[in-house]
């Protein structure tokens, strides 16, 4: 049994991870800490676990691991505390709003000799793991190009407040696909060009659309749309899609396209009932297994850092108007 605490319910994914902790047989959901006491208490009550308002007391409670689901800007301080307390860490993506914080997070965990995972549930989506197997088996031959999307509904709240998020849709919705492409190909990103802006939602101070053009080692060309462009009336939260163009053909993957069309007069709009795998549960399961086995989680802190290097370069490009180099930090 691994004793796991959740730090902050600022990010809505916290609820999915909490559900996973409740349902996994080898996990003991030990408690909640949150800098927003009302939110933390409500979540603790929801899952029938204790809430601790004092972070040091919380981390001193003999936890084997923590899941950090705070605002991006607060990740670093929480990771540093949790690592010092000896807890293994699963940190929400993006692991940090900038490479400086991301590198510090990786270094803190290395120094404390605790495992660090980045919450990249895409690595556990059955559709994507099958494509990975297909690529590894050479089914598509060499990969030449890809066009991808990670679209979403507007999340509101701190996501669109730069002081807490560090950036908008380009930051929120680039890292998943960046990580999947690194995982698929074993290659690193070298350059990025980005057009972005606040073009859809009024009254926010971040971008809500990003169009990225990326290059990977060996000249692989990739485009990616990172967006909050799905309206509230859209049947689901958004998507992760990829068109992979290779030597032997084309693979189109729409990672969450396992759905039943639902029409309910009372709902007033069509909806999709998803019946595919539960990647969040698999992600948490891997984190628990990593603690038991004393290994790094499947997607490591370094994977999180590499993805942040891409978003940082994307913002640099959007600002300069030129293609930006993705600077790979030594770790």
């Amino acid at each position, binding site marked *: 049994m691994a004793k796991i605490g959740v730090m902050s319910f600022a990010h809505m994914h916290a609820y999915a991870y909490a559900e996973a902790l409740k349902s996994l047989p080898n996990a003991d959901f030990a408690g909640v800490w949150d800098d927003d006491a009302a939110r933390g208490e409500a979540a603790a009550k929801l899952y029938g676990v204790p809430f601790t308002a004092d972070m040091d007391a919380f981390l001193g409670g003999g936890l084997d691991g923590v899941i950090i689901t705070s605002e991006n800007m607060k990740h670093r301080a929480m990771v540093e505390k949790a690592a010092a307390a000896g807890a293994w860490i699963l940190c929400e993506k993006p692991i940090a709003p900038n490479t400086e914080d991301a590198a510090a997070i990786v270094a803190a965990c290395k120094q404390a000799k605790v495992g660090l995972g980045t919450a990249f549930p895409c690595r556990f989506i059955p559709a994507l793991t099958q494509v990975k197997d297909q690529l590894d088996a050479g089914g598509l*031959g060499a990969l*030449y*190009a890809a*066009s991808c999307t990670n679209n979403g509904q507007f999340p509101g709240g701190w996501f669109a407040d730069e002081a807490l998020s560090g950036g908008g849709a380009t930051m929120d919705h680039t890292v998943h696909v960046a990580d999947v492409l690194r995982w698929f190909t074993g290659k690193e990103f070298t*350059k990025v*060009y980005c*057009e*972005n*802006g606040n*073009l*859809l*939602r*009024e009254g926010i101070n971040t971008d*809500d*659309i990003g*169009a990225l*053009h990326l*290059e990977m080692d060996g000249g692989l*060309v*990739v*485009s990616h*749309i990172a*967006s909050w*462009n*799905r*309206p509230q*009336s*859209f049947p689901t939260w958004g998507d992760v899609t990829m*068109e992979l*163009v290779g*030597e*032997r*053909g*084309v693979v189109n993957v729409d990672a969450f396209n396992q759905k039943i069309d639902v029409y309910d007069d009372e709902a007033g709009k069509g909806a999709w009932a998803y019946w595919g795998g539960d990647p969040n549960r698999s992600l948490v399961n891997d984190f628990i297994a990593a603690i038991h086995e004393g290994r790094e989680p499947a997607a490591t802190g370094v994977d999180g850092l590499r993805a942040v290097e891409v978003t940082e370069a994307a913002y640099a490009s959007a600002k300069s*108007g*030129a*293609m930006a180099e993705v600077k790979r930090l030594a770790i």
Partner: protein
Amino acid sequence: MNVAIIGCGGMGRMHAQMAANSGFAIKVCADLNQAKAAELARDFGAEATTDCQGVCGRAEVAAVAINTPTPTHLEFIKLAAQHGKHIFCEKPLARTEQECKEAIAAARDAGVKLFTGHVVRYFQEFETIKQQMDAGVVGKPGFAKTFRGGISPAGEGNWFRDFEKSGGVIFDCLIHDFDWIRYAFGDVERVFSQTMRRSEPEVMEYALVTLRMKSGVIAHVIGSWAHPSGFAVKAEVCGSKGMLHFDSNDTSIQTNLRETPGEGPGVIVPGSPVDVSPYQLEWEDFKNWLEGATPRVSPQDALEAVRIAEAALKSAETGAPVTL
């Protein structure tokens, strides 16, 4: 009114039919390939010839339809204009911006109408997207995305696969989307583009283009001549309060013919059945222009589409955005 069809390949046959439907008489069919000219001429009760330049000067011909490979458009436009013939020309209007300017000047000086077949403006699905958008359904538009492509086309003598001739997927195929995006969202501020072009294991190209409009709207345009089969079109527009989405794979007819050994692959019948073909609507617009109405596509529009396509090609080559 008598029409000469110049270039009797895939589009030549299409336009002969559309012109005939719109009440034009197909007088002569011209192609360097005698057999192709003869076959089309027989079907339309016309005369066949390989003297393609000569038909531009025929007294009995009032308009020409140019359906030859793109680099030959300018020569035929100039000849037809000199002889006072109205012109229906397939897109791209000509192979370069400079050539387009010469073509437009030739038509203007001769006082003839020069129509360019930017047919996407007449496709019902695209027109519906524009109407919905103009009616305010998505609120303020901020983002658009299109996809167009499929298997790499060959054409007579493989001219589509010769970059010098066709300009590849960006110049030949995505020019449709560049034109429609400009029609729907106004002028382009700058263009960034990447392309994957290969000759092995076969000729293929995949292009990723982002247009930043003067209005701020971001339009992402994907083109493929890299798919192993088929042809598809997709379009999406997102705004402050809604979105519009179309995918030709989700259509009212899907025919999947059994592949018989030795007969090659079965054909997937694309497209949506409509009352009036968009190619017919083009010809109606051309005809109405000859009678004094304003057409949906102006010569300047055709030139602007070529400018965007050339900017995309330049960006793909230099790795830098190109401001128009």
